[in-house]
């Protein structure tokens, strides 16, 4: 099926697809990713779309991008610079060409390079014909719309409908270029458009036409192949962060034997958590689309009080609204998980872009001293485990837990080695029913957790509330010493979560020149950056913090083992401040707030610079 000549072998390939919001680039990217994953490659993706549902066609603001990285070795990021750029129009070309690797392939939809479209992005003439461009890159212009029209001729479709299939045409070309198996893709199209067989047929025809176009025109001269990655044996699926997070929550609920109630109000990029959880009503999951974020968290509190695992999911602006109620959950000491999928701030900010600027909000965004454990997922698949751990700590310590994700890992995807359900430990939960000796705020010695009691339990009737309460009976107390005691205990309880945090996991060098500290969705870029710096001869360690509150017990020691410490994060230095305050460590800070993840190169450069500083 593949090209005539034997394909060239490549270890890693980065493709960026870019077009108008309506051009279906997200779908094309997702599908190619799926095929790469199914073929055994390691993959990582980065969708990057505009805030508008459909920004004006042909404008820079309307460009929707999808970058995917697939490889025969382990990869950790969607790649800094693409090998291939598919540009569906001049805007997509303009916005992305600067990132393409020298010698990289441009596959451009010539039909869209009309003078009207060129003008929209201030091109006097088609940049595709520019000599300099053609010297730097391998540029392929194809009249995609024409090609698709030819392929769909006779189906009785309108021009508009025909144009809609051009992403599948482009997908076909990529399949050919990378020697992918087309059958599964055809099946998928058939299923996806089962209700609209005409569209199914059109898309399949376009897809095949693209594939054959590559084949028959021998367009690129050569084709490539990326072998299977050496991955641990097991069963895999390709998973997005928000899906993994939902899967983790449902798993935790099942493993705890406690139903889950989500209160949520839609907000980008967290809405998919609501959407996906809503599918699991048969798993005992109840999703409640509340009237606002305050109602959402209040409902989670009510649900937890009622004996369910209360969860709410939101993004930064929504979390800002939940502060008061989160303080209530804290003082009530009930188990709850607040998911914050961060996006670009402040205020409405850059809703569809990624950032890590809610850390201090999660730590301190409520009145009074009201600490809560804060955990962050580091990659799409890791959202699964982080969600389970958040639930576990919440029910064990009877505390709300903030679970942080971000737009980058929420929408990004990676292959996930699916664990056997039996290997996931149960989450022990016991509701108190024993009347004898019940005191509402009596505590477990080890965890300082109070007992969880379901309303409906005879003989344990009691009242809780937001006023300060007696350390034992839970009755309202204005006693000064009692208040001190309760504030101390609540803080101590959160600190005790340290018991459940494994010793700091150091990657790279165990001591040496510099330790690079990060958290959340930047793991991949930092990891590769550190590896490159090590390859460059430096002794570099990497610590990627899963728990931001409390920190692991040994973190101070670990920090002390390096001459320098560099904290990398996508904000203005929030973790950096926490570490300085906690350990008085004279760390350096490398930050970026551009709505974009770190490039590996940026991290590498920052390490070099820090070493010199």
């Amino acid at each position, binding site marked *: 099926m593949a090209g005539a000549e034997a394909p060239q072998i490549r270890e890693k390939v980065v493709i960026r697809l870019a077009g108008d919001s309506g051009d279906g680039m997200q779908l094309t990217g997702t599908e190619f990713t799926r095929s790469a994953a199914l073929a055994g490659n390691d993959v990582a993706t980065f969708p990057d779309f505009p805030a508008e549902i459909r920004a004006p066609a042909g404008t820079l603001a309307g460009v929707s991008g999808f970058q995917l990285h697939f490889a025969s070795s382990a990869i950790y990021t969607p790649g800094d610079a693409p090998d291939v750029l598919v540009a569906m129009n001049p805007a997509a070309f303009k916005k992305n060409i600067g990132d393409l690797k020298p010698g990289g392939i441009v596959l451009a939809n010539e039909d869209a390079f009309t003078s009207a479209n060129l003008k929209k992005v201030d091109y006097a003439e088609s940049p595709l014909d520019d000599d300099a461009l053609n010297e730097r890159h391998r540029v392929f212009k194809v009249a995609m719309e024409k090609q698709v029209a030819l392929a769909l001729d006779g189906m009785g479709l309108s021009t508009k409908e025909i144009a809609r299939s051009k992403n599948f045409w482009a997908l076909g070309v990529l399949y050919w270029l990378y020697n992918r198996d087309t059958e599964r893709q055809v099946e998928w199209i058939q299923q996806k458009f089962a209700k609209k067989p005409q569209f199914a047929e059109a898309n399949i025809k376009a897809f095949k036409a693209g594939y054959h176009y590559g084949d028959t025109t021998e367009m690129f001269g050569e084709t490539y192949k990326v072998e299977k990655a050496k991955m641990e044996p097991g069963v895999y699926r390709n998973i997005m962060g928000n899906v993994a997070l939902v899967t983790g929550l449902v798993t935790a609920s099942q493993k705890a034997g406690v139903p889950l109630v989500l209160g949520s109000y839609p907000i980008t990029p967290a809405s998919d958590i609501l959407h996906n959880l809503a599918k699991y009503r*048969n798993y005992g999951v109840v999703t409640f689309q509340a009237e606002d974020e305050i109602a959402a968290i209040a409902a989670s509190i009510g649900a937890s009080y009622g004996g369910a695992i209360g969860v709410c999911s939101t993004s930064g602006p929504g979390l800002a609204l939940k502060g008061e109620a989160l303080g209530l959950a804290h003082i009530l000491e009930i188990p709850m998980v607040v998911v914050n999928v961060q996006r670009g701030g402040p205020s409405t900010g850059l809703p569809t872009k990624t950032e890590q600027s809610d850390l201090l909000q999660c730590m301190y965004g409520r009145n009074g001293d009201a600490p809560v454990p804060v955990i962050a997922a580091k990659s799409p698949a890791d959202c699964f485990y982080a969600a389970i751990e958040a639930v576990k700590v919440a029910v064990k310590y009877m505390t709300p837990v903030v679970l942080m994700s971000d737009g980058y890992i929420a929408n990004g995807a990676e292959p996930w080695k699916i664990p056997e359900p039996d290997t996931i430990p149960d989450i022990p939960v016991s509701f108190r029913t024993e009347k004898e000796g019940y005191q509402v705020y009596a505590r477990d010695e080890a965890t300082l957790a109070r007992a969880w009691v379901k309303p409906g339990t005879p003989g344990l009737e009691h009242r809780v509330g937001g006023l300060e309460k007696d350390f034992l009976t839970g009755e309202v107390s204005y006693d000064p010493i009692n208040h001190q005691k309760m504030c101390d205990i609540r803080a101590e309880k959160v600190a005790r979560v340290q018991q459940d945090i494994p010793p700091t996991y150091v990657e790279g060098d165990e001591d040496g020149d510099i330790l690079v500290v990060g958290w959340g969705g930047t793991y991949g870029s930092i990891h590769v950056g550190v590896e490159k710096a090590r390859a460059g001869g430096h002794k570099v360690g990497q610590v990627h913090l899963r728990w931001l509150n409390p920190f692991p017990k040994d973190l101070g020691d670990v920090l002390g083992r390096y001459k320098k410490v560099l904290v990398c994060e996508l904000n203005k230095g929030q973790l950096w401040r926490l570490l300085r305050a906690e350990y008085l460590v004279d760390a350096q800070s490398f930050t970026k707030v551009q709505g974009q993840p770190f490039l590996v190169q940026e991290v590498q450069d920052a390490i070099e610079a820090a070493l010199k500083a």
Partner: protein
Amino acid sequence: MPLDPPDLVKLTRKDFQTPNDVRWCPGCGDYAILANIQKFLPSLGVPKENIVFISGIGCAARFPYYMETYGMHSIHGRAPAVATGLKLANPDLHVFIVTGDGDALSIGGNHMLHLLRRNLDVTVLLFNNRIYGLTKGQYSPASEQGKITKSTPLGSLDYPVNPAAFALGAGASFYARTIDRDAKHMLDVLEKAHAHKGTSFIEIYQNCVVFNDNAFEYVTDKKQKVEHALYLEHGKPWLFADGKKGIALDKTTMSPVIVDLEKEPARAEDIMVHDENDASGVLGHLLAHMDHPQFPVPIGLFRQSERPAYDAQVIEQGKVALEKRGAPDLKKLLFSGDVWEVN
């Protein structure tokens, strides 16, 4: 959670009293309401562990502390949302929301709106004293215009929220009004509310002796109430003043008018007859807008309508989902979508 067991130890009023000191001002109308509710609950035949009181913040919102049931004194205005989550976790619980006019109609107005339209199966007790009690006497959205309070030394400018019009406009399936001091009437309304499936919204006129004393004197004072209260009874005409006056509808303006039956006995026919289940809601609308002093103030159940409660539908949807999609299966959950094997 088990449904209420059929053979119950008979509870008494005392069973619902906590040892806590009740901390309202002496003479506060809240005491009477507390006593009435404690008297009422045993009649339900519901074990007390299945009863939960959820409140916001305010004097009224201290209520749960005095009830020997489950309870939560939550945060200002959010009790309806807390109650919603609670019922979603356990729809079998009997949940009461206790709230004040500030808690329910000022900061909490939105949650109240959505509670009512969703028709969650709970009972709302709105203690309306037309003032912010706990914060020591600012006007509330239920205060009359021109009210001079600490925050409005020159008189308030806002038109009050009409709680009945608001609730009915929000789609309340049950709206009733009663009075702190009228124990018998309150019990009657509470019974009706308990029988109602869906959100029962009860506005209770409550006297704040300290900051708004006698705000409702016209319906509590024995002498005045004769002329100023219109007690509603299903199927009975809208009569007051010991039956000497009634309310008719002016057909051209569609407005209620007071008919003096002593002067015009012939118009007895015209007097509106109360229908709690009035399909069009017009009666509820008219009652909601009959206000002191132009009209006698209606007391009782304005309107009740039937539609499935939100929580009942959630359960139903769960059953359907279980049937259609099958029992929880972690293997299925984890291994869904396109999977591949690496050996």
